[in-house]
């Protein structure tokens, strides 16, 4: 087996294992689906009920997808994967195999990407059922989704490798970081109604730019040119978060080697 073939086999083995574990954790899977769906329904029904806000329904789907669904499943899921590997002692076991660190990283990305796609289909099916419309380019939407997933997984590796020692810490850490980011990311309230100071702080929140980019494509049919600022920001953030994630993962592996 050539090294590139082995790399591919290892990557797919990691991705398949993670998806299988997710599938077996039925209760977790139910909450994984119920949480964003409920949010989508609640937001959607509020918007749909208010004729003057009906246009907001299209936008709500993007915010919930980026904030409530992808954040908790891709970022939270990655942190949970690292914490679980540590807790179960499987991390040192993996280190005794020829598993390439990048294959592990990519395996996690692929698993999270597939889960994210399922959430997109699930949420947009609900959104379309209650009257929302997807207006823009599917390719551009896919690109934003890809950048968001890579960013979240990178951040997940960073937080998981550096901070989350136990599974119980994951929930607390995610709530402490995630909920303020959701608020500042325009998931619950539009940016315009926030105080100026908050608006300024929100500009450095990547979730805001994911939200605005997705909203721009999905709700308003915007193209590459109109979303160039958001896309540039996301690309830069994706690069930064992947660099941080990979560096933290290396630190985690190196840390194991010096203890």
């Amino acid at each position: 087996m050539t090294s590139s073939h082995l790399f591919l086999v290892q990557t797919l083995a990691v991705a398949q294992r993670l998806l299988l574990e997710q599938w077996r954790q039925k209760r977790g899977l139910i909450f994984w689906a119920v949480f964003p769906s409920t949010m989508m329904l609640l937001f959607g029904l509020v918007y749909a009920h208010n004729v003057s806000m009906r246009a907001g329904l299209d936008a709500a789907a993007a915010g919930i997808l980026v904030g409530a669904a992808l954040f908790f499943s891709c970022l939270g899921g990655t942190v949970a994967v690292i914490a679980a590997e540590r807790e179960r002692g499987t991390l040192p076991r993996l280190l005794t195999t020829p598993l390439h660190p990048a294959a592990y990283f990519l395996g996690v990305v692929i698993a999270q990407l597939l889960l994210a796609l399922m959430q997109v289909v699930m949420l947009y099916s609900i959104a379309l059922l209650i009257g929302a419309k997807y207006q823009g380019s599917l390719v551009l939407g896919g690109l934003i989704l890809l950048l968001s997933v890579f960013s979240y997984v990178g951040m997940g590796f960073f937080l998981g490798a550096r901070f989350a020692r136990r599974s119980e810490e994951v929930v607390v850490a995610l709530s402490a970081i995630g909920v303020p980011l959701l608020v500042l990311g325009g998931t619950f309230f539009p940016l315009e109604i926030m105080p100026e100071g908050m608006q300024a702080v929100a500009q450095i929140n990547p979730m805001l730019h994911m939200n605005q980019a997705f909203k721009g494509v999905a709700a308003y049919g915007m193209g590459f040119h109109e979303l160039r600022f958001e896309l540039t920001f996301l690309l830069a953030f994706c690069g930064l978060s992947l660099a941080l994630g990979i560096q933290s993962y290396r630190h985690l592996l190196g840390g194991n080697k010096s203890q």
Partner: protein
Amino acid sequence: MTTALQMDDVHKWFGSHHVLDGFSLRVEKGDVVGLLGPNGCGKSTVLKIVCKLLDLDAGQVRLMGEPLSELGYHARALVGLCTQHCALYPDLLPGENLHFFARLYGLYDRERQQRVDELMSSFALEQFATTRVSQLSGGWQQRLHLAVSLIHRPKLLVLDEPTAAVDLEARMDLWRFIESLRDSGTTILLTSHHLAEAERLCSRVALMRNGKVVAEGSVPELLARIPGQAVAKVESEDNEAIVQRSIDLGWTVRHGAGQMRLLLPRDLSLLEIIDALKGIKVSAVSVQPVTLEDAYLELVGDSPWMVEPSNLV
């Protein structure tokens, strides 16, 4: 080339703590070498270095004749590790765990399936083929753990206290598996706190203290280094008299944990011992041939057993 593992003058520091202080060991192909020593003497550090989980600070390690540092990822395919903590995926089935690790080692589809079937059968895991690992008992989990560490047919199997976390029945089972591996020529390096385990399984034993090997050899060789062929354990209120009588008889006395151990130059019967201690109030006495436990206490020498008679009386 018959040497599977050779470690020469290996040093490892954790901060200012010198964990391995010139550790040297040679494991020949087909050998089962037991690494014994008190907690914190560096046994696990040795295994972690062999498995490339830790880098050494000085010295040299050769695996299958090649320097470990030059083997890179390839070294990981040569070694299989099984620890006392069952590091498996609890939501997966036994076969799924085996398949996952087989893929990490790059086993092809047909070869992988054959190997998984072979291990499921050898370890009698087929009956639990549809049971998640989390629902298996500790003993069965450890069986699977051992099977996983063999999935890639390692040249060297490293067992870190493999039976420490299982009950007696499961321990006996695992011993039988390890014996069958030994008999099939698998090279094994194991650590254990069960001296009986090492005595039963190992062809050679290395006794460690303070990060280095203090004695090494086959079990009979180590037993030959004890100044006695049998050991009598005596409980008495008059230890001073026991010590004096033993010295008069040419027996070696060791004392610790409220018990006297008399190392006898030949295998005496219980009656002969009682007769020899006539006139001294003895509450309990037993005698048995020397075991690895006696060699350990004698040669590792870091225990309260080693109080000399002069300190005692």
